[in-house]
């Protein structure tokens, strides 16, 4: 039974924001989302967010890149078109392996980096031509915004937010989006 009303509090300092988030959560209010112009150190812990699993994915992607590099070089240099380069005939992968190490390394990094970025975008529901969800353009400049769901507790919440140092508090009726 969530209402469509949310309250948005604006802060102008990341330290104030961090302590505000802590006291809001102590009062057992549910924070929907926090919008910040830059990553705030320790905010994920203060919000109680689950730890990211992207590092595990990075390792898996790296392993995929490593395997792709081995298979690719084996096909290109050994199976499909073996050549004699510098007196080192390409008849065996393992004997020519040192020459392929830079490629194995680069593809590991390439796969890990690119797939990680793509995973991050998909997971954050960001894709090309997507309309911005950002409720207030100031959060792309120098302000921080905390969005809290309302459950007929407007007065209490407003007082709390004032006390935590919010510079501006607005009530928003959300339509359409859940």
């Amino acid at each position, binding site marked *: 039974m969530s209402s469509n009303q949310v309250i948005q509090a604006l802060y102008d300092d990341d330290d104030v924001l961090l302590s505000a988030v802590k006291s809001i959560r102590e009062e057992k209010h549910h924070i929907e989302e926090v919008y910040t112009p830059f990553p705030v150190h320790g905010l994920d812990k203060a919000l109680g967010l689950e730890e990211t699993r992207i*590092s595990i994915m990075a*390792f898996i992607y790296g392993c995929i890149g490593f395997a792709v590099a081995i298979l690719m070089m084996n096909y290109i240099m050994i199976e499909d078109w073996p050549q004699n380069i*510098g*007196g*080192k*005939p390409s008849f065996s992968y393992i*004997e020519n392996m*040192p*020459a392929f*190490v*830079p490629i194995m390394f680069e593809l590991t990094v390439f796969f890990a980096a690119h797939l990680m970025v793509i995973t991050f975008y998909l997971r954050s529901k960001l894709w090309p031509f997507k309309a911005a969800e950002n409720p207030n353009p100031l959060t792309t400049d120098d302000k921080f915004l905390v969005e809290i769901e309302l459950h007929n507790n407007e007065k209490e919440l407003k007082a709390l937010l004032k006390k935590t140092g919010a510079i501006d508090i607005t009530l928003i009726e959300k339509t359409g989006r859940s």
Partner: protein
Amino acid sequence: MYTFTNKLRNLSIILMVIGFLGLTYGFLTAPNTVEQANAMVADGHGDGHGGDHGAGTHDNHPVVDKADAHADDKHHNETAAHEDHHQGGHGEAHDKDAHGEDHHGEHLLHQLQNKPWAALYVAAFFFMMIALGTLAFYAVNRAAQAGWSPALFRVMEGITAYLLPGALIVFVILALSGMHFNHLFIWMDPEVVAHDKLIQGKVGFLNVPGFLIRALIYIGGWATYRYFSRKFSLAQDQADDISNHKKNFRISAGFLVFFIVTESMMSWDWIMSIDPHWFSTLFGWYVFASMFVSGITTIALITIYLKSKGYLEKVNDSHIHDLGKFMFGISIFWTYLWFSQFMLIWYSNIPEEVTYFITRIEDYNIPFFGMLIMNFIFPLLILMNSDYKRVNYIIVMTGIVVILGHYVDVFNMIMPSAVGDQWFIGIAEVGGFLFFLGLFIFVVFKEISKAPLHAVGDPFMGESERFHY
């Protein structure tokens, strides 16, 4: 204040005594005559050590056909393998002057006589290198005005106390080589130089007086920096202003310039010249990476030890985490340099250069590839996980493997040219390691006990205490 416990002192003395006995045994059992040397190797073959490779590499007369049989599985290395037999080690001089009957035996005698010296030298150099790497790490932190590390400065200063005694021991060994007590450095032998055009061309740099004077300059510079930075660091604890800190910053920046030049030249002099025909332009960096990672690992091990005894209460697991990151990162850096050196030489396959790796792969297969596992694969897989870098026992376990791995690295740099295929990690080698380990523990913990472990005066101490990842 830390007190050097009797238990630890006794341990270090016991290690020194055992190590000394091991080294003495090594020196006493070294052969004096060609006959003894031949007899020893005949026994050694019975033990299954040495084996066919030894015959292929060192019977110099029927060299061509044996080398062919030897290299048939890797025909692309054939030319290089031949060159190996002509150029490798100090076999050459004895080949060319061809007077005596038993070249092989004489060659063998030299190798076996070198063996205890090389065991002593590898261990002496390795522990000196740990102190030097730590000094470089300390200077980097000082010059960068790092905020996280002041809580560890006293540990680092303790470790670098070993630098002067350790380097002087190395110097004594080098001086004894210069006086022909051993044949570690064949270019010191005028008999060899007389028959060797390549070494003759290098006499301007590779001559005993110049070699020893350079060594004194390196050691003097390092020890002077270490003396003053320690002095300023202790003075800063009592001072009201930060002038000592600023002085330390300045001399650290200056030292780093001096260090990277002298470290590089030191590695040419003390290691690369053991193999005077071979050269690698990134050797200095490679040795540096090895000493840097050994030094950082030692800092982590000693920090964890002191913390387990209840000292260093300001050091939290974020500091350990950062040391773990450095261990991880510099291990990969080491591998990068090792591979860069290996791949270029392997690819270009120039006989003069490639002999270096052929002797190592053929005669030192297990330490050569084992070192890669210990120094690269193992720390890579274990320390990759962020949480593991905060777990003390994982850092200790990985640290011990990395330290041993870099001992093997130094072993691989020195042994092949000094003793050829007659290597063995036996009583003399283990003895050398234990002796210098004992000395290292004794000197380092004595120095740590001399000053408060907490550098209260450091202007970045507050930041270091609050440091969290």
